[in-house]
């Protein structure tokens, strides 16, 4: 230990540099302000100049649709929650305003907020049912909504049936002149659009934006990293519906007429075309998509007559060039241009050249061990600031360090006295008739390194999933610190201090190393999407992530995109992500698979140091590594726990030899 303690630790300075670089980048412009200003200035100019002409009326109509597509960019594009509910809620907003206006003579500006609140409540009730579904099931279930709505509207007398519903009032209630109505109404729509863009852009750039990105890539990974997936999915659904209803209200107020086709499935398809042409993940792209399609439709020439052909070709070509739509094409173009400019100048293009990556853990091992073992202030700070800091029994890293490896073994011995950290009681799991786990019971103490071995198909990963919460056991209980967590969803267990890595690397492609690690530092146990319009905690999370990376000597990689890394580095990033929140129980699923012998030795040193402050349960096939680092080894075979003992017994056990060594 001593050479590690005295080894120079470059970590804090690097971490500081990485996080300050990030802060400097984002501190320049407040979140979401740029697109909002663009919308306000450009929109107001167009309305003021062309407001009373045909061009202006097309623009205002397009802006109504853009309000809807901006919400779709958050819900469908960014978070990949494909729900076909927008045209229906556009109808709810439009018909709601029309009804209140004609039946109760209510001004449109008064009716709009009432309708928005009503839509939000309706979306909440509907969403709490439909967002239980995921992926294609969500898409198909919500596909029924426009079909139901169009049948209902065309049969209903009070909504005007197939004829449509007229309005007497306008968005801008000026009795004097139609010019004031047109320009005032247009400016109101621009203001609504700006508000929607502001909210959407701020959410996407916040810590919850990062959560939503992970949710969109893989719902199960998101849950394992503490994202409260059911709640986020419901919030997204409500957000999409409310924006759509606002767009519908703006439509009714400016067009003074609500046609039946507003809730038609083809209206939903038209909205999707706008979103995908503009760029599904970009709010401003979605707005531009709506503008382009509405202008093409309103052009009154060959294009508008054959709009279907034009839309079909345009969408195909854009998706072939870049699946991220026009926004993606523009971003790539700007990157290319800025890359050219920078090459012409002095500096290097990226933060870290490829040569820096090769062995991220080489320099890191000493600093990581120093950080963990000696209670390095940075590491201690990371633990104290973790999402788990409300948990009273967080182990003190300093005492853990002084206890050392032998001390940790001592804890194991003493575990009979106190409550073990993790208890698996008589857990069984059956799939159909197939029994994957049978009556497995084990207990783990606060600290130490434990391994789970067994032949392929023995149930190792299933047991890890049962502990992590992504697979419910058929029978039995899982207890953490004596509390039954068997019924808790994965994200709740994450906040109790269970963190994990996956057998196959589950990183979020398209994001930097720093953001990948930051996902597990978000600590949003009580937050909601809408509070993030006010204040983002993304920078806090990134700071914590930068510290965790620095602890592993990977600070230089912070701004690299994860898909460009080697497998070893990706596994290290995943480990950093699991470690960053300072877990009490770390579940590692085959962290050494695919690594070379050198890389395994570095991993062994790292794991040993981790075991001094936390409890690590390792699933691993490399028996030499297992025997080298573990203090206690469990062997599963055919779902049964067939061995439970120390490394010495493990090496000599006939059961283990016949099962795993094959002699």
């Amino acid at each position, binding site marked *: 230990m001593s050479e590690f303690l005295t080894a120079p630790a470059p970590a804090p300075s690097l971490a500081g540099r990485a996080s300050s670089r990030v802060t400097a980048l984002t501190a320049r412009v407040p979140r979401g302000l740029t697109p909002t200003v663009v919308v306000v200035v450009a929109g107001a100019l167009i309305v003021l100049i062309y407001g009373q002409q045909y061009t202006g009326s097309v623009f205002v109509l397009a802006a109504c649709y853009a309000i809807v597509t901006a919400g779709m960019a958050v819900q469908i594009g960014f978070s*990949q929650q*494909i729900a076909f509910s927008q045209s229906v809620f556009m109808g709810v907003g439009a018909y709601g305003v029309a009804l209140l206006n004609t039946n109760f003579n209510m001004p449109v500006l008064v009716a709009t907020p009432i309708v928005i609140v009503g839509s939000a409540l309706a979306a909440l009730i509907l969403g709490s*049912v*439909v967002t*239980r*579904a*995921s*992926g*294609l*099931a969500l898409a*198909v*279930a*919500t*596909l*029924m*909504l426009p*079909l*139901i709505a169009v*049948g*209902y509207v065309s*049969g209903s007398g009070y909504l005007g049936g197939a004829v449509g519903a007229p309005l007497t009032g306008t968005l801008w209630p000026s009795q004097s002149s139609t010019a004031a109505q047109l320009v005032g109404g247009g400016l109101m729509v621009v203001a609504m659009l700006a508000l929607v863009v502001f909210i959407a852009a701020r959410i996407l750039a916040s810590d919850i934006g990062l959560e939503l990105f992970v949710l969109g890539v893989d719902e199960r990974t998101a849950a394992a990293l503490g994202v409260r997936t059911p709640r986020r999915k419901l919030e997204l659904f409500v957000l999409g519906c409310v924006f759509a209803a606002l767009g519908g209200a703006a439509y009714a107020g400016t067009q003074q007429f609500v046609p039946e086709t507003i809730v038609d*499935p*083809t209206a939903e*398809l038209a909205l*999707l*075309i706008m979103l*995908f042409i503009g760029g*599904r993940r970009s709010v401003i792209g979605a707005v531009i998509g709506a503008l382009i399609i509405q202008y093409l439709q309103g052009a009154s020439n060959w294009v508008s007559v*054959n*709009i*279907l*052909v*034009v*839309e*079909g*070709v*345009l*969408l*195909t070509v854009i*998706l*072939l060039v870049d*699946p991220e739509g026009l926004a993606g094409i523009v971003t790539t173009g700007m990157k290319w241009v800025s890359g050219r400019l920078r090459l012409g100048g002095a500096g290097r293009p990226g933060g870290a050249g490829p040569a820096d990556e090769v062995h991220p853990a080489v320099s890191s091992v000493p600093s990581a061990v120093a950080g963990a073992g000696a209670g390095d202030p940075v590491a201690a700070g990371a633990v104290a600031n973790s999402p788990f800091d409300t948990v009273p029994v967080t182990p003190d890293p300093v005492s853990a360090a002084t206890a050392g490896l032998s001390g940790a073994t001592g804890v194991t011995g003493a575990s009979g006295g106190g409550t073990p950290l993790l208890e698996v009681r008589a857990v069984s799991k059956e799939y159909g008739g197939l029994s994957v786990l049978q009556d497995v019971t084990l207990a783990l103490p606060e600290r130490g390194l434990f391994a789970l071995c067994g032949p392929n198909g023995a149930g190792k990963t299933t047991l890890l999933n049962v502990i992590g919460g992504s697979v419910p056991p058929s029978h039995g209980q899982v207890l953490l610190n004596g509390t039954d967590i068997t019924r808790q969803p994965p994200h709740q267990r994450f906040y109790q201090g269970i963190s994990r890595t996956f057998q196959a690397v589950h990183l979020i*492609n398209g994001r930097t190393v720093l953001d990948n690690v930051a996902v597990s530092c978000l600590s949003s146990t009580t937050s909601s999407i809408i509070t993030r319009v006010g204040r983002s905690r993304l920078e806090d999370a990134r700071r914590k992530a930068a510290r965790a990376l620095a602890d592993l000597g990977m600070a230089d990689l912070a701004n690299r995109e994860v898909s460009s890394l080697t497998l070893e580095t990706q596994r290290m990033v995943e480990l950093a992500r699991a470690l960053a929140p300072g877990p009490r129980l770390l579940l590692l699923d085959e962290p050494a698979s695919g690594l070379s012998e050198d890389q395994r030795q570095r991993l062994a040193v790292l794991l040993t140091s981790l075991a001094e402050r936390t409890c690590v349960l390792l699933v691993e096939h490399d028996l030499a590594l297992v025997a080298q680092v573990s203090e206690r080894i469990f062997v599963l075979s055919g779902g049964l726990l067939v061995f439970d003992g120390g490394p010495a017994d493990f090496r000599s056990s006939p059961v283990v030899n016949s099962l795993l060594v094959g002699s």
Partner: protein
Amino acid sequence: MMKLGNLIIAGIITGSIYATFAVCVAVWYRVSNILNLAVGDFAMVGALGVDNLYRVKGLPLPVAIITTLAVVAVFAYLYDLVVLRIAQDRRQMEGIVVTFFFTFALSFFIDGVAKMLFGTDVHAAPGLWNGNSLTLGSLHFERAGILVLACAVIIGGAFWVYIRYTLGGKALEASGENVVGARIVGIDTRRYRLWIFIGTAVIAAIFGIVESPITGFTYLSGATISLTGFIAAAYGGFRKPGRALLAGLFIGVLEALLGGYVSAEYGDTVLYAILATLILAWPRGLGFESAVSG
């Protein structure tokens, strides 16, 4: 009793329309992992193309049919060559959402071209088996309806047998399960995707010709047909043509019964509400999870 019997017959005929498109969607999804939203548009082209060549241009009916089918096949081939080759290479990264929108754009394109060529009126291909409807006691069978049902059963059954019992069917299945793995063991996944795409396009066109005397088509009919086929395929777990066939028939019968006994006006609304509830209550049973992950 007579009403029930005739409703069920009508339901089975509508259901076999859904079923056929569901089978086409399911088979191509199985081989390519792309949901084809343009399948109904090929049916529309079949019906309106034959009508245009036969009635307007005055070609003999067999020539009109063969020409239309040839045009559909060549178009499908070119589309695969130009668009799908590029799109599919990227699919591994982009997932189901983006590829889905390629066929979506294709559907818009075909509808737009059909509008240019065939106008906006309702037309239908001439009936292939004309005469009064056949009666059995008090039950009535439209001749076109019998043809439609026969087509559906033959097409669905043929694909089911092909996938379940032939080597080509296994190779097709492998192409969809794992493109890289299938290529490693020597399966030309592109060729399977191409042939099934052309095959389902031509089948849809034939079916449109057979079916159009019953419902009549406009240039916009394709999207509605695709949608019902898509929904029926969904209830068959997206990948299973046999189950898609049954789901299509079930939806058709349910629709007819709801229209006949519950409400002619809101029958469809109730139908879609029931279908939505089924998915939400029982996604696993309907095979949605395997459809996404597999």
